[in-house]
């Protein structure tokens, strides 16, 4: 497929919510780290399914069920290609990245982490890649250790190298949802695996914004969420290396994940269905295909390039505005399109609330990364995060709205 140059106006026109008015203004949506907006191609795919071929999959032998099954499996193939996995057997659909990580903690973790083992995560982690390991380690009397960050917000690789030896698992995010830090997961996976350590990469903030290749990265597991990458809510992906998935016990038990059931025993279905118990989120998985093809048409390289340009512009404008504290790496090559900041005299919640009156949507609080905020001694931050449809004009609206914040709340 030939990649189109990213035309931000055209992308914007594809996203219906951007033609609506809020307080009489169009929406400047700068909370993409929380979730992305949806292009009409994705929304229409949902209606098409429910109106045209709604049926359950992997069961019916009639036409519409076969069509639904084919399209469901077509998404799996698209995800495989999108993240560079070797086989669709390695692509498991879940509800979200959180569930993907929990699946690993509760199956692989349950059978592989033992008393005295060390599980390595970083202080950058989202609660979704932290709490499952905390609970697992408590139950197993294993030790949870944190890789620190340096003053510039990048991961402390020396700290990592010191701790990598003998660790059972490294579970780390590829991009921080607060500082935007891009973590050198490939280099880390190489070191970790040399030490016999299994590697899980949380790709919730990377897969939507940059080219990902799980084979090249060398991870054992990779998690992502459809809703952060133009797709519907309720769909996540767990990539797992085939040999590992095969050795893992199933997660949920019930229909679809079995091959044979007798009154006293059952045997498990093949990969990847072994991990997809019960009726799947058929409609949303099918619609997710259209999100992936949308991104692939633009090419992930140009999505990343666009976001770097917007982030660069926003950092300049925010520095110019003055009186703000910006967090995270200054080096754009080490940073995703996320800017966390604080303002003297205005709490992040108040910033977000005043911005909301200007129809500028940003997030405030801990962003599900409380340990990170604690390590930086921050009681919360305001966060603007960009995607392929954001424009410089929206950054200007952000800055103008911050002027209002200062007017209203400045002491």
């Amino acid at each position, binding site marked *: 497929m030939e990649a189109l140059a990213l035309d931000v106006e055209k992308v914007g026109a594809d996203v219906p919510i951007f033609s609506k008015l809020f307080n009489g203004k169009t929406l400047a949506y700068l909370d993409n780290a929380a979730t992305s907006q949806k292009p009409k191609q994705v929304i229409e795919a949902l209606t098409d399914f429910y109106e045209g071929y709604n049926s359950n999959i992997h069961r019916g032998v009639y036409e519409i069920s076969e069509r639904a099954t084919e399209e469901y499996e077509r998404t799996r193939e698209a995800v495989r290609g999108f993240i560079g996995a070797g086989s669709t057997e390695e692509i498991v659909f879940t509800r979200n990245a959180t569930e993907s990580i929990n699946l690993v903690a509760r199956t692989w973790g349950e059978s592989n982490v033992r008393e005295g083992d060390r599980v390595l995560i970083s202080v950058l982690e989202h609660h979704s890649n932290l709490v499952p390991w905390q609970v697992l380690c408590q139950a197993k009397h294993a030790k949870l250790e944190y890789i620190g960050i340096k003053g510039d917000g990048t991961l402390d690789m020396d700290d990592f190298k010191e701790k990598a030896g003998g660790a059972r698992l490294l579970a780390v995010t590829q991009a921080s949802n607060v500082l935007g830090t891009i973590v050198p997961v490939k280099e880390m996976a190489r070191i970790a695996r040399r030490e016999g350590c299994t590697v899980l990469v949380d790709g919730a903030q990377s897969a939507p914004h940059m080219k990902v290749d799980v084979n090249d990265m060398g991870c054992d597991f990779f998690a992502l969420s459809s809703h952060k990458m133009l797709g519907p809510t309720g769909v996540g992906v767990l990539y797992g290396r085939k040999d590992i998935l095969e050795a893992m016990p199933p997660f949920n038990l019930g229909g679809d994940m079995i091959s044979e059931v007798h009154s006293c025993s059952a045997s498990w279905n093949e990969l990847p269905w072994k991990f997809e118990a019960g009726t799947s989120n058929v409609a949303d998985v099918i619609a997710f295909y259209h999100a992936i093809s949308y991104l692939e048409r633009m090419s992930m390289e140009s999505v990343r390039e666009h976001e770097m340009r917007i982030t660069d512009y926003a950092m300049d404008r925010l520095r110019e505005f003055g009186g703000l504290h910006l967090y995270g790496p200054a080096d754009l090559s080490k940073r995703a399109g996320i800017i966390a900041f604080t303002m003297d005299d205005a709490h992040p*919640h*108040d910033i977000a*609330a*005043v911005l909301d009156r200007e129809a500028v949507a940003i997030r405030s*609080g*801990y962003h599900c990364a409380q340990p990170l*905020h604690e390590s930086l001694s921050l009681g919360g931050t305001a966060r603007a995060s960009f995607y392929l449809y954001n424009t410089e004009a929206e950054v200007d609206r952000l800055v103008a709205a911050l002027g209002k914040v200062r007017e*209203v*709340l400045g002491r």
Partner: protein
Amino acid sequence: MSDEVYKEIILDHYKNPHNFRQLAEPSFKADDSNPLCGDHIELSVKVADGRVSEVGFIGKGCAISQAAASILTDLIQGKTLDELKGMEKEQLLEAMGNPDLGPVRIKCALLSLKTLKLGLYPYMSARGPTP
């Protein structure tokens, strides 16, 4: 959210909080925080002859939580313990000018009242019923 959130009264109390101090010898005190946004309130109350004689708070957080705490300290001056116990959230919201808060930020507004009750109940049960 509407324009009706940052009312003058809220901004006044936020910028110049009343009773912003910690009492040296309070009859009871309590602190609580809002885990979602990190608002924190520490409230100390002095009781004399069954009534609130002095109250102070310190804290940090958003304008809504801090203004609400300041307004609450004015509101409870001179009240009896039973009046404190019976105090409803509507009274505080009304004193704040009934700002149009959504489900998330109402928690910011009510943090100080929650903190008050947190300190009040153990104090009341330790004292036993009023004669």
